[in-house]
């Protein structure tokens, strides 16, 4: 500072306050993922914070430039791994938009059922984890038993529970089996009561409300400036939902409300997700009742694998089989953007194709990446334990943040 003095500039020195630096993360059990927050603490109050991202960056966008289109699905599994079917199907819809395929109504409805199940499982995780972070572990264990049932339905549909790789370009890889329908019926029958029980446990509990009301608020205007979407934006009072604004996969056929909050605080985010689960149940019910008959995949021989018996018996099917697996089917060149309402918000795929087997460039719009930008602003001036709660109520998933 002496050079300032030499130049004749007066520097005013303030009394140095009692600030500490606290490293929250990168592997802190309370943050539910790998997030590093370097917090400047004044006692228990956060004065300033600095975030580090990229701890589990796996360069999906770059890897996608060298992969055939059907192999990119497994990359999307690993973005928001709490609701991977939404990412899988979102990617398939993007490619279908590029190549211009009409998906049969039945496949669209089945997709809606799968995506709404995934949304419920995502919200189960977020809501019960908010309760855990306020100290109510019990509701978490009750709800997770039912998330298990959703995973069993996935298992019946595609063979895996977490990294599903569900669906194919042009439809689904197989129709729902009887076991899957039975499990879905069991879920639809049993889950509302469980949800109500969870509500009774935490929703109007004063301890829970004191911990969550006015914690980590963000105004609707500010949230829009950051580019929030999904439940976190709706909690701030803006009723934007991709399913209504830009309907995909026949969402316009279903009747459902959009729950909105008011202040965009943790309690609002919790409540919006809680109500969205009920709306999702309504959508599944409608899709199940109105399920049309028909094929579960479109007739796109150049992209959808032929049935195995045709591969052995028919020349043409064998040729298509080898071409698809080896990634030799050309897609038209062009640019598409397709977005789906993911568990956390608008999951977007910006795909540039110059023809050929793999994308020229793929950008993944990951909502968590956007939420995390606003995180320092939302926790400034709040307590440390509230910062943890804000992070979990925004449902920032490390895999989606870093991609």
């Amino acid at each position, binding site marked *: 500072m002496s050079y300032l003095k030499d130049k004749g500039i007066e520097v005013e020195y303030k009394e140095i306050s009692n600030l500490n630096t606290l490293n929250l993360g990168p592997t802190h059990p309370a943050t539910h993922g790998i997030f590093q927050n370097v917090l400047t603490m004044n006692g228990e109050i956060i004065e300033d914070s600095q975030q580090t991202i990229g701890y589990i960056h796996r360069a999906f966008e770059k890897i996608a430039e060298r992969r055939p289109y059907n192999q990119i699905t497994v990359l999307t599994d690993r973005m928001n791994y709490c609701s991977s079917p939404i990412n899988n199907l979102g990617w398939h819809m993007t490619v279908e938009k590029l190549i211009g395929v009409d998906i049969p109504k039945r496949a669209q409805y089945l997709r809606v059922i799968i995506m709404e199940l995934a949304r419920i499982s995502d919200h189960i995780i977020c809501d019960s984890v908010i309760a855990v972070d306020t100290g109510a572990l019990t509701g978490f264990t009750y709800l997770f038993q039912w998330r298990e049932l959703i995973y069993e339905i996935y298992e019946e549909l595609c*063979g895996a529970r977490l990294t599903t790789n569900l669906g194919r370009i042009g439809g689904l890889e197989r129709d729902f089996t009887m076991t899957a329908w039975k499990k879905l019926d069991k879920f639809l029958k049993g889950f509302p009561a469980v949800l109500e029980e969870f509500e009774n446990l935490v929703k109007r509990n004063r301890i829970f409300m004191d911990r969550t009301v006015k914690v980590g608020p963000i105004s609707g205007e500010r949230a829009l400036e950051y580019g929030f979407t999904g439940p976190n934006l709706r909690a701030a009072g803006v009723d934007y939902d991709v399913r209504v604004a830009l309907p995909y996969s026949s969402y316009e056929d279903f009747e459902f409300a959009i729950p*909105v909050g008011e202040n965009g605080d943790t*309690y609002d985010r919790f409540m919006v997700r809680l109500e969205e689960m009920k709306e999702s149940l309504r959508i599944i019910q409608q899709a199940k009742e109105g399920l049309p008959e028909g094929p579960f995949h479109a007739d796109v021989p150049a992209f959808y694998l032929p049935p195995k018996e045709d591969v052995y018996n028919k020349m043409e099917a064998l040729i298509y089989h080898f071409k698809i697996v080896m990634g030799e089917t050309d897609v038209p060149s062009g640019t598409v953007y397709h977005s789906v309402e993911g568990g956390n918000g608008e999951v977007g795929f910006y795909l540039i194709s110059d023809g050929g087997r793999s994308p020229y460039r793929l950008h993944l719009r990951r909502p968590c990446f956007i939420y995390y930008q606003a995180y320092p602003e939302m926790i400034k001036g709040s307590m440390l334990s509230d910062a943890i709660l804000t992070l979990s109520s925004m449902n920032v998933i490390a895999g989606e943040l870093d991609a």
Partner: protein
Amino acid sequence: MLTNRSKQVVKREMSLAEKLYLPAIFSGMAITFKHMFKKPATVKYPEEKREMAPIYRGHHVLKRDNAGAERCTACGLCAVACPAEAITMDAAERKPGEESLYREEKYAAKYEINMLRCIFCGLCEEACPKEAIFLTDTIVNPEYARAGFIYGKDKLVERMDARIDVSKRQTADVAMFKMGESEAKHNQLYNPKGEQ
């Protein structure tokens, strides 16, 4: 408001009973108390095992046909389809007299799956044009050393004394096709006595 579908869901004013917070505590405790008499949701794993879906994607198997010949012809489609690049193989030509070992004229002399790379996506099973590789509903065993996870043909090829049923993973037509004429012709050629 962008849509006419929005629904305000948050009510933050607390009633007197809620402000007292004791009723909420007791009602919460009543709920947890009720759960003490319910059947536990857990599965006591090593003793009890959960039934997996018939199409569960676990440990791979390289199938043999009914005569005991390996079905794989080392075409390499599974290796091409693998997003994790976990599969490697070396092809070799079948010599006279090996007809009962290998189904086709070309076979995989070496076939390795690196189970540490494998993501169990099932694309290899889908790609196989010979019904040779399947995923099963068993889970890969843990090992102490990384080298143990590179599975060669010794671990992958199914044993004839412990055959693995994959018929549930196939469509009915494929199962019929496999049991149909081509299988019969093969058996007639190479295993006329019908020995297993």
